[in-house]
């Protein structure tokens, strides 16, 4: 990204300011990192509910009779059987089998597919789709005209009921999607999220986002709904072992070593990167992304070296306190021989080696 490019702002920027959010640059956007405090917001999502503005995410629409096949040819997961109203998590790889982004693919209509990508990858993925999509389908990067709100937490469903959401929304099962109206605002609503909790993501036109945000805040008052920033979003997703692109996965990692083999369907229709991934799978893993728990006094952070027997064997990709699990946790790549649960490792924290152990993930499961 160009250094002098001004930060983009979501249509909810004034809501965040009014709520006293601390705003920080993130992936080219001015985003709320916290309101009341990360720990408090994290607990709100685990115990009641949180409202997130994640309008920086990218929304790409692929339309036409062959829209689903066209998308399927660009992702590792098998979307060929994705019925209308269903969604799936996947990654999108380059020809070498390395990860360009992780995505959720929503089959919104018979001939209409929405692909949601990370803000940091939006231009890259839009260009990739545009250049590699088969002819005959229509492509639109709708990110600039769409906002994305997420309500996450055990009270999420009750809050949407309070908002008068139709039964088609409140009865959605996990990874289902419906196009509907919420408090008079046209929206695509999905039972998806990035927190390890039950919840909904709501895509709507940018110019209606503030009205929807305020309506949800009002409906949530009785349920302990709190606005939640990117700080708690990160600790929530880490506890649930959800990948953060740019930290845990990037163009130097492939899905198998990241533990994402479950979204690679080599037997389905051909897709970009399939041959390379078949070769990588056959070759076996050199390293694996493992869960780490600090047993010594320290907090692992992105980029810290992982050591064993006095030498560097890997790198921490994500790390922070886990507010719900009550331990300092992280993820990192280590050689396969050191990836077994219970293996003792060291994390180099500012020159000092602090003990850690490989643990099962997710760290938190609802």
């Amino acid at each position, binding site marked *: 990204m160009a250094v002098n490019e001004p930060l983009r702002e979501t249509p909810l920027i004034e809501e965040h300011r009014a709520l006293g959010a601390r705003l920080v640059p993130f992936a080219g956007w001015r985003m709320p*990192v916290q309101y009341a*405090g990360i720990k408090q917001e994290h607990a709100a999502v685990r115990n009641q509910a949180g409202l997130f503005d994640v309008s920086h995410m990218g929304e790409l629409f692929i339309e036409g009779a062959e829209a689903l096949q066209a998308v399927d040819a660009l992702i590792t997961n098998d979307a060929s059987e994705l019925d209308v109203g269903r969604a799936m998590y996947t990654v999108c790889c380059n020809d070498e089998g390395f990860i360009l982004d992780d995505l959720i693919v929503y089959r919104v209509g018979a001939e209409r597919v929405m692909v949601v990508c990370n803000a940091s990858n939006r231009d890259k993925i839009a260009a990739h789709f545009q250049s590699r999509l088969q002819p005959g389908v229509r492509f639109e990067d709708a990110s600039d005209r769409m906002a994305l709100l997420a309500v996450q937490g055990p009270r999420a469903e009750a809050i949407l009921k309070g908002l008068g959401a139709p039964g088609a929304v409140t009865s959605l099962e996990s990874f289902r999607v419906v196009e509907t109206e919420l408090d008079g605002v046209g929206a695509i609503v999905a039972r998806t999220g990035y927190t390890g909790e039950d919840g909904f993501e709501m895509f709507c036109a940018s110019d209606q986002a503030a009205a929807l945000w305020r309506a949800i805040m009002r409906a949530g008052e009785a349920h302990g709904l709190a606005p939640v920033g990117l*700080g708690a979003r990160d600790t929530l997703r880490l506890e649930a072992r959800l990948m953060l692109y740019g930290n845990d996965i990037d163009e130097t990692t492939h899905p198998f070593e990241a533990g994402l083999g479950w979204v690679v369907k080599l037997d389905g229709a051909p897709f970009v990167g399939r041959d390379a991934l078949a070769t990588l799978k056959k070759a076996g893993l050199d390293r694996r992304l493992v869960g780490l728990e600090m047993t010594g006094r*320290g*907090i692992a952070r992105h980029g810290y070296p992982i050591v064993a027997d006095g030498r560097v064997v890997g790198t921490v990709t994500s790390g922070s*306190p886990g507010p719900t699990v009550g331990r*300092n946790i992280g993820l990192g790549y280590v050689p396969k021989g050191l990836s077994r649960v219970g293996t003792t490792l060291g994390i180099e924290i500012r020159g000092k080696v602090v003990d850690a152990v490989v643990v099962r993930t997710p760290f938190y499961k609802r």
Partner: protein
Amino acid sequence: MATFPRDLGYTREHEWARIEGDVIRVGITAYAVEQLGDVTLVDMPAPGEDVQAHERFGDIESVKTVSELFAPVSGEIVDVNADLESSPELVNEGPYEDGWLITIRPSDQGELDGLMDAAKYEEYLGTLDG
């Protein structure tokens, strides 16, 4: 908005210093606490170690980030706040009271004159980005 007691001296790195007899008590300011968010771990040296003015003597971690701690004056560490090991949140709850970090026996009293008073510190904060 954060508040800054009038009886303290302040550094550009957002530590405060309070003269208590022949030692200086040191902590971080309410502004620093606001910037850090929830403090989760404070890493400090042991009593008896020497510190140098404006040099790092430890680290403070919040959920989101890690920051260095700088000594306002040179001298020997007399005491460290052992309560922070189990309760780092004391820094958030009372940065000028139970959330203090260390006490220092200064080797050069004159260094205290180099600290900002509350008004100067507030002025200095005004020059920093939001």
